[in-house]
């Protein structure tokens, strides 16, 4: 009996058009997608939007599923890439928005209020570079090993280890700064 069909089998079946397998797969992993999206963006609203975009794109993405990695590794990669694109677009938008006059002022005000409301986590995270943030989200948040995180990010294990120690250093520096 297949009490719990492995993700990889479901993904393969879904890629071949099995609707039930796909439904089960997204149902099983929505929370995971949302969770990582939150860890990467630090915002619940953004995580929600990101998760929805990923869900919408997943059927097409699954066509490229080749079963070469564990499904969760593959999925993490999809989420990380989507978050990167989001950041890139946000950067573009910010530039494009320069000179929108009152709109922009109002929006910036809002952002400031929002930022003030963010907790310590968000502050700590936003002060780290995106690379370090991604690494921390995967290693601390998703509890991946450094090797697994490396697989997701397409980096060597050594790079991940270096990033982790770098993050530690930065946090320590921040703590000092805050203390003074």
């Amino acid at each position, binding site marked *: 009996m297949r009490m719990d069909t492995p993700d990889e089998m479901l993904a393969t079946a879904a890629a071949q058009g099995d609707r039930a397998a*796909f439904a089960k797969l997204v*149902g099983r992993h929505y929370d995971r997608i949302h969770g990582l999206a939150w860890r990467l963006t630090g915002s619940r609203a953004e*995580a929600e939007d990101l998760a929805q975009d990923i869900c*919408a794109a997943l059927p*097409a993405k699954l066509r490229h599923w080749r079963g070469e990695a564990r499904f969760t590794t593959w999925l993490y990669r999809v989420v990380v890439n989507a978050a990167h694109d989001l950041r890139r677009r946000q950067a573009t938008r910010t530039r494009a928005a320069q000179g929108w006059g009152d709109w922009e002022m*109002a929006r910036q005000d809002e952002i400031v209020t929002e930022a003030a409301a963010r907790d310590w986590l968000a502050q700590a995270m936003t002060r780290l570079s995106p690379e370090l943030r991604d690494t921390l*989200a995967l290693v601390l948040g998703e509890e991946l090993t450094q090797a697994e995180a490396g697989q997701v990010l397409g980096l060597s294990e050594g790079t991940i280890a270096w990033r982790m120690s770098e993050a530690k250093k930065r*946090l320590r520096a921040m703590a000092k700064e805050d203390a003074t």
Partner: protein
Amino acid sequence: MTDDLDDLRRALATPPAPDPEARARALALAMENFDRLQGSTDPARSSEDRPSEAVPLNGVRRMLKSLTSRPALAATTSIAALVIGVAVILPVADLRLDQPQTAPTDLPADLPTEADQLADELATAPEPTDLGEVAKAASPPATAARAPVEGEARLRSEAVADAELSGGLVEVENAVVAAAPALADAQPQPLPDSEAFATADANPVKVTAEEPVSTFSIDVDTASWSVLRSTLNRGAMPTPDQIRIEEMVNYFPYAYPAPDVDQAFAASISVMPTPWNPGTRLVTIGIQGALPEVSDRPALNLVFLIDTSGSMEDPSKLGLLKQSLALMLAELRPEDQIAIVTYAGSAGLVLPATAASDRATILAALDQLAAGGSTAGAEGLELAYQTAEGMAGDGEVSRILLATDGDFNVGVSDPEGLEAYVAKKRETGTYLSVLGFGRGNLDDAVMQALAQNGNGQAAYIDTLSEAQKVLVDQLTGALFPIADDVKIQVEWNPATVAEYRLIGYETRALAREDFNNDAVDAGEIGAGTQVTAIYEVTAPGSEAVLNDPLRYGSATAEATGGELGFLRLRWKAPGEDSSTLIETPITGEEEATDETRFAAAIAGFGQLLQGSAYLGDWGWDEAIALAGSARGDDPFGYRVEAVNLMRLAQGLDR
């Protein structure tokens, strides 16, 4: 703050619980896009009954279906219209793929140019159907000053749409364009099942001047025919992915001329007008394997590797399997040896090597097989190879017969690793054939891949008479290879053949250079078996030529005496490393026989089932008439059965 990562870890440990509504919305959207993708590019899948363990999936499906977002989407559209009336242009590109939206053209002229670009981009970019946000923007208390802010927020959220996402959608849109628009709505919902079929797009027409050489490996599998038969007999049309034309054609025995005494096989060629296209001809290549004296056959070591996972608990699976193997036992000789390995949960040796004459012991062991547990295919396979190696003696033939209903790769992280393992074991001289049983989660793709890598045959057994055919009538052919790595290469003469098309063998294509590379694996021929390949060729100047001739191409091949092409065959004696080459010209004078006409009828049948574009007006009546007229000597009634199946398909197709 802290100088450790622990605080961060703790903070990151519990993400906020996702909003159930957002979750449902995202999942519904995922399903909608999934269906869109299936409906537009894939035909509906066969209406398999799911095995009982899959029922919970159906529940999930029902739940998701009830969460349809149609009303919500209707609301979005009208609210968006309101917003446009208030202040800003909000191009609402609906995320649902079937409602492409166009960019608004009345953009205020004084907007910065970036805004124009932004609007263009957004018009094509999908947008999350975030009802709440739009509703806020349109709600009565919203002041004129507030609305733009919301509008901007909205634009920002549209910008969220990631680049990869739009890439995926472009793919979908293309697919929708390709499909007939009328079909999009009429497409039945794909029904869930976990069957997987090895499939590839039909071979296209090739222009001889551009690609004169066609290379492929022979294929002795017959599974596709039995699968489509079982589908038709249950009153459903097989889906195109279940159709592999070469397996349909090769299911039938053909009376091709026998090879000379010292030859492993003979190739015979016939050329006939194409039944479905008066402007083209069919070139049929028939290969007949030699049938060594049956009494001289070497002793056989057989390891039955039997899937006893829970899903095998079915009279058409384990029950039929036991009967089939008992049937086969009668054909074996006293010096042959049998062992039985089962796999389910953990793999186990049920019957150690036993002489085939000890029927009572073997039958008792077969009888005790019971289904239960999950599938540990890889472990079972290893044990089976180990057992087979222990049984092997000099000059004996060892073969593993894997009997399964599909679920083979459970527990194996990569199916390709399994194939590689089988391919490696092939070098030790142990062959692997696969017998498929039952429907529902038949993993035809894995079956085919394993048999292909294991130098064996993949057959699908749906009835006891099919077991009789595969395991009794064709026992010698199925179990005794006479030639390994048989490759066929045809070089077409551009002077006489403008275009050609290989019918079937899509999953067996080889690269041109692989033909002479003895390290490249190909199909095996068993004792006394036949393999048939059919090309449809078009002469230059024929009305049926699909491609315009090249202006600068030249075809001056008078020197070849009007030959259509040149057939090259490579094969190895079993266990040998270097191949032998056989060459035969295709003169175009070879006459058709009932055998090749029947093969053509079956190829036509397969293409009808695939909905091939090459058949023109040729339909069921013509296929039935052709097959009926070319029945020839059909002692076991296989060809009559084919005619009956065609009639059944004709009825179902209406």
